[in-house]
């Protein structure tokens, strides 16, 4: 297994959250929920797990009329995601390379 492959991050629900957050800074909790098609409670559980691992941070808005929660990747989370995505790309790339003891390419 690639050393940069992150088992914790590869859980589909967590990887979805991190992928939604990656291109942006702060992202509204509701947008993340709708983008990955999950429930508030399920997303909250994944965000808590990611926050516990230091991969995301959470900010709750002060406006009481429309209290919004924002989530963003921490630098550690961003780095972990970049490494994990690179590991996935390497796994795919390696599978496309011809095996060293395989038949020679046709001339």
């Amino acid at each position, binding site marked *: 297994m690639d050393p940069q492959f992150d088992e914790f991050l590869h859980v589909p629900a967590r990887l979805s959250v991190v992928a939604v957050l990656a291109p*942006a800074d702060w992202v509204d909790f509701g947008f993340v929920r709708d983008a990955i098609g999950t429930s508030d409670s399920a997303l909250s559980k994944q965000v808590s797990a990611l926050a516990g691992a230091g991969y995301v941070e959470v900010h709750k808005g002060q406006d009481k009329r429309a209290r919004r929660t924002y989530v963003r990747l921490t630098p550690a989370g961003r780095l972990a995601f970049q490494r994990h995505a690179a590991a996935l790309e390497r796994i795919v790339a390696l599978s496309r390379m011809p095996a060293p003891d395989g038949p020679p390419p046709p001339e």
Partner: protein
Amino acid sequence: MNPQDAQASLNQIRAFQDKTRKEMIRKIFPWSFVIISALALFAMFTSIDLDQPWKSIANGLGLAVFIGVGLLYSLGVSVQPKPTLPMIGVMIGVTPFLFVFFIIGRIVGFALFGLPAHGFLSQAMVGGALAAVVYIAIMPVARRIITWIALQANGPTVR
């Protein structure tokens, strides 16, 4: 982890990243923000030729509306782009550009209409109107530049 699963994960990552990028681009400088901030700019520029206390009132009001609408816009979006130096550079770079058109407008106001350098119907009003129109006119270009910067800067691009 087999290559098929890895490819499926990469495809999923790309699809989710695209959703975020689309939302981010959709909300860059909406027209409501552009029109209100252009009016605020007009008030600030026009206030230069007003007498006190209207000068301070119009300037303060224009500045408050300009900052307020900017804050409301940035707090109201679901997806906030990561601010980068080129992005800030574009926003700051617009200011002297508008000021040049304000000066041109003043000259036009004096040369063509013989307007005075004081009062409401003055050179500053023509300059402010020209700067506000130019501000609205360059927004599609600014939006394209900011979109390009946001797409270049944000997140790893998964192939």
